């Protein structure tokens, strides 16, 4: 049943969807190649879930075209569903069933697929196979959701915020599982608002905000587009009046801005910029309260594009 191995797994053209008073998706175009892991990265409310649910055939668009594995929804949906694996946000499986019973139930819906025991082993839930779903931890429940998405041997996998609300260890464990699935050569569309998740898992990332795509590329390309490899953030002690214009003239500074008393510089080479920055601070008589630097991430890409952070918290 492996078709469409070469080419495009999912194509979305000019997708639009509005709810009563909110435009959730505002003319989105996506193309996901077979065998790649594509990430929709954006803050909450950016339209990621609406987009992925339209692609999953669970929601209908107001306008636009969606081709899933070369087919449209509304023709032979059941045959198409045989080829898809889906993990929704916030699905609660029946708490009174065991892990094995749940996976077995989902397996029964597919004509072809993996054996439940294999899939349970794949997501490392063997020891919990006989446990009731109600007794699982959050991470284990997410791995069960992944098992139910994988049990039909899907060609295309949709994962809507697979690690939201999990502790760091569970997230890393889930990432390993998804990477394993990627190496099988299947296609994945995942949504996330964690930049580290997108950087680690995705071959290409589309950054979306307010229902539109504002950037597209590999994580490396997007970060390179900042022209700066590092981000330098500092805060000053006291209520010292500080003129930030001279900062922009320092050699190697690509951009500078100030939010809530924190100055943020995008910097090409730290070792050249640092002495100049310290000199400028001394010139204006300011004292440092905090100084941080990090390598530029997708988060910085989002901040430089929108002036906001991915997560408000």
């Amino acid at each position, binding site marked *: 049943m492996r078709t469409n191995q070469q080419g495009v797994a999912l194509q979305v053209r000019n997708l639009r969807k509005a709810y009563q008073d909110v435009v959730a998706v505002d003319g989105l175009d996506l193309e996901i190649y077979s065998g790649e892991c594509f990430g929709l990265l954006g803050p909450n409310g950016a339209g990621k879930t609406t987009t992925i649910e339209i692609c999953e055939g669970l929601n209908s668009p107001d306008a636009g075209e969606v081709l899933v594995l070369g087919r449209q929804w509304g023709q032979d949906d059941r045959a198409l569903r045989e080829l898809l694996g889906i993990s929704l946000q916030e699905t609660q499986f029946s708490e009174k069933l065991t892990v094995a019973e749940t996976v077995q139930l989902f397996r*029964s819906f597919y004509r072809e697929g993996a054996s439940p025991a294999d899939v349970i082993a794949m997501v490392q839930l063997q020891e919990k196979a006989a446990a009731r779903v109600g007794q699982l931890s959050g991470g284990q429940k997410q791995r069960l959701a992944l098992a139910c998405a994988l049990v039909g041997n899907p060609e295309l996998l949709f994962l809507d915020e697979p690690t939201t609300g999990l502790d760091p260890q569970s997230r890393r464990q889930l990432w390993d599982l998804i990477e394993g699935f990627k190496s099988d050569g299947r296609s994945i569309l995942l949504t996330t608002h964690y930049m580290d998740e997108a950087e680690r898992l995705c071959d290409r990332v589309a950054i979306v905000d307010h229902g539109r795509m504002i950037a597209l590329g590999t994580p490396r390309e997007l970060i390179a587009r900042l022209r700066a490899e590092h981000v330098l953030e500092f805060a000053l002690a006291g209520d010292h009046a500080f003129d930030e214009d001279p900062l922009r003239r320092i050699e190697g500074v690509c951009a500078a801005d100030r939010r809530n008393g924190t100055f943020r510089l995008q910097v090409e080479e730290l070792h050249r910029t640092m002495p100049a920055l310290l000199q400028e601070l001394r010139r204006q008589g300011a004292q440092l309260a905090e100084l941080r630097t990090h390598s530029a991430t997708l988060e910085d890409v989002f901040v430089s594009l929108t002036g906001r952070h991915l997560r408000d918290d």
Partner: protein
Amino acid sequence: MIEKRGLADHPLVQLTRVRYREFFREPEAVFWVFVFPVLLAAGLGIAFRNRAPEQTAVGVVAPGDTTLVSALRQGEELDVLPMSEATAREALRTGDVALVISQGFEGGVEYRYDDTRPESRTARLLVDDALQRAEGRRDPVPVHDRLVRERGARYIDFLVPGLLGMNLMGSGIWGLGFAIVDARKKRLLKRLIATPMSRFQYLASFALSRLTLLFIEVGLLLGFAILAFGVPLRGSLPLLVVICLLSSLSFASLGLLIASRAQTMEGASGLMNLAMLPMWIFSGVFFSASRFPDAIQPLIQALPLTAVIDALRANILRGAGWQTVAPELAVILLWMGGSFLLALKLFRWR
């Protein structure tokens, strides 16, 4: 990774097994569906059991007159209590005696009683009969009493089909309604329709599991009623099975209709109570539905539970055949088809 698959891997079998697991792993559901109706039948059966004929207490105010007392004590049905005037007045008022006999004018007697109390009217007849016979009355028509104590005419016999109907309604509506609203609330319905699962099979699994649980449910209650109270089963067993199957499917369809849109448990249970309350009251579970005014009888007869209970009583107590219960079966089928079609139209999978 392709494995061999048998009947047990059929989605309908899997879905139906899930229904059983969810039911039997919920002890409260098992109690309300299986145990509670039996307890209710036991409690009401004991409270309303028919007792051996009791003696009726009557008071006699006749100081120094023993002939009156001994005349009354000839019969077995009277408990004759000589008492003072003051005690008699008090006993009559509190209902300790049904009637007070005292000396009247010109050698006669006076009966004091409340004619709105059936017990007192009975006492009046018994006392008068005993006194007149003692004085030598002879009846012109010879009579002979033959006592018939018939099974099937007692309150418990009337009650058991009513409880059976009520139980079929409760388990159908609650069993289906809660499970579906719960799955919708947890977004499990949405997750299920994201698979190639057949939606028809999902709904059919509820019907299938209802039909099998039904045999346990009906068997327990009827078995208990037959063994403990000797309730008769006069009708044909196949007809009884058909009535129960159709009733259960009909209430399950109603449950599906109620659950077709509700997003919360609170909303769903409100709707369920709204649907069931009129039937608990009007459909004749505990007393005959014919006690309500004629004006509302057409409405009462149109309720599914009324039809179910009428058909069950006709079959169990009177041994009625297929033709007799055909109108009730028609009402049940109409409710089944109507609610199912409407539910399919309204049903929200998300």
